[in-house]
């Protein structure tokens, strides 16, 4: 523990990712978490870590909580982390570590990461020549009220001016019914899209839909999923997404290629 002397008090080692091998140049010019300190490689036996020395006092739990409650800082940190992770995976697989994985020194980082070498190798093998693609499905806009689907409203039309209260209630009931039908239709589309894409993918994960609120009916997100897709199938995957867009009428957003963040934790 020779680095102990200059260790805990002033410097901490932030780890972005672990790879088999890496050209230091691909990360050298990136800012990382803190400007002025190079993003560099830390040899870990058969692996390399992509790390950066950061001022320890700026990276305590308290400092993080404070930093990350500021939307702009949160965005900067998340994007910087992702930038370094993505660059690390430019020429071969890299295993991303979650935001804010920190060690008191390079020696401590090496010790902890080398102890997990087997796990890293297993994950690297699994994600080699694969990328992660995110897919979000939004239910199509609610169709205008069709008479066939609304027996209550259809009956209304025949009758001359029913009580205003009753009409209001029926209108509300019809609206509620339409909402429910629309929501169910959205869920069916979500299942259909997920099933089709999962068949093409090596693995699939469901993420929490964004800003879903029970009162959302129009264009609400019905699926937020992510897929591990082999490189040679990525074109096919995009094609299938287009086809599903046409078949279901739903709006389908695809994002990627991501470093397979969502597929490295369970080996």
């Amino acid at each position, binding site marked *: 523990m020779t680095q102990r002397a200059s260790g805990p008090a002033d410097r901490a080692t932030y780890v972005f990712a672990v790879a088999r091998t890496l050209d230091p140049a691909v990360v050298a010019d990136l800012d990382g978490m803190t400007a002025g300190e190079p993003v560099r490689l830390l040899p870990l036996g058969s692996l390399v870590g992509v790390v950066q020395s950061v001022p320890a006092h700026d990276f305590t739990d308290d400092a993080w909580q404070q930093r990350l409650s500021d939307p702009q800082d949160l965005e900067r940190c*998340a994007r910087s982390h992702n930038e370094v992770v993505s660059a690390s995976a430019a020429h071969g697989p890299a295993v991303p*570590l979650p935001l804010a994985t920190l060690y008191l020194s390079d020696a401590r980082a090496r010790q902890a990461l080398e102890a997990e070498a087997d796990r890293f190798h297993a994950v690297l093998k699994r994600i080699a020549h694969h990328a992660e693609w995110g897919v979000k499905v939004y239910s199509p806009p609610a169709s205008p009220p069709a008479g066939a689907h609304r027996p209550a409203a259809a009956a209304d039309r025949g009758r001359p001016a029913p009580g205003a209260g009753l009409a209001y209630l029926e209108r509300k009931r019809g609206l509620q019914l339409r909402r429910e039908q629309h929501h169910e239709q959205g869920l069916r589309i979500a299942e259909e899209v997920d099933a089709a894409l999962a068949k093409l993918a090596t693995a699939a994960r469901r993420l929490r839909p964004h800003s879903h609120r029970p009162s959302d009916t129009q264009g609400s997100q019905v699926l937020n999923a992510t897929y591990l897709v082999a490189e040679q199938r990525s074109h096919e995957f995009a094609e299938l997404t287009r086809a599903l867009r046409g078949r279901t009428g739903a709006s389908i957003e695809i994002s990627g290629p991501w470093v397979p963040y969502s597929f490295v934790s369970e080996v």
Partner: protein
Amino acid sequence: MSDVDFRTGSAPVPGPPNATLADILERVLDKGIVIAGDIKIDLLDIELLTIRLRLFVASVDTAKKAGIDWWETDPALSSRAARNALQDENRELRDRLASLEEGTEQTEETSRT
């Protein structure tokens, strides 16, 4: 890898260039391989923060970039959504009027013959 970008000077960065903050956050926060660190950061707290962030967005622009736009469809918060609701009701009323007029025309025609 087959396609290698040799311009190593400016690091080639894969990953979606137009990724939204929400997309990035849900990956960098609690995904990735978890190895115990020396400095413990409570990611659950951070996740709560991001949820709070979604609810109390300080800046609409940041939120839009993050793909958070529920207020645009919430009639209580958006005049656009309120307008949509009005448009829907208008359309409904017009349909009803048209079907009623159709009915009257038909009775007029039958009474004339």
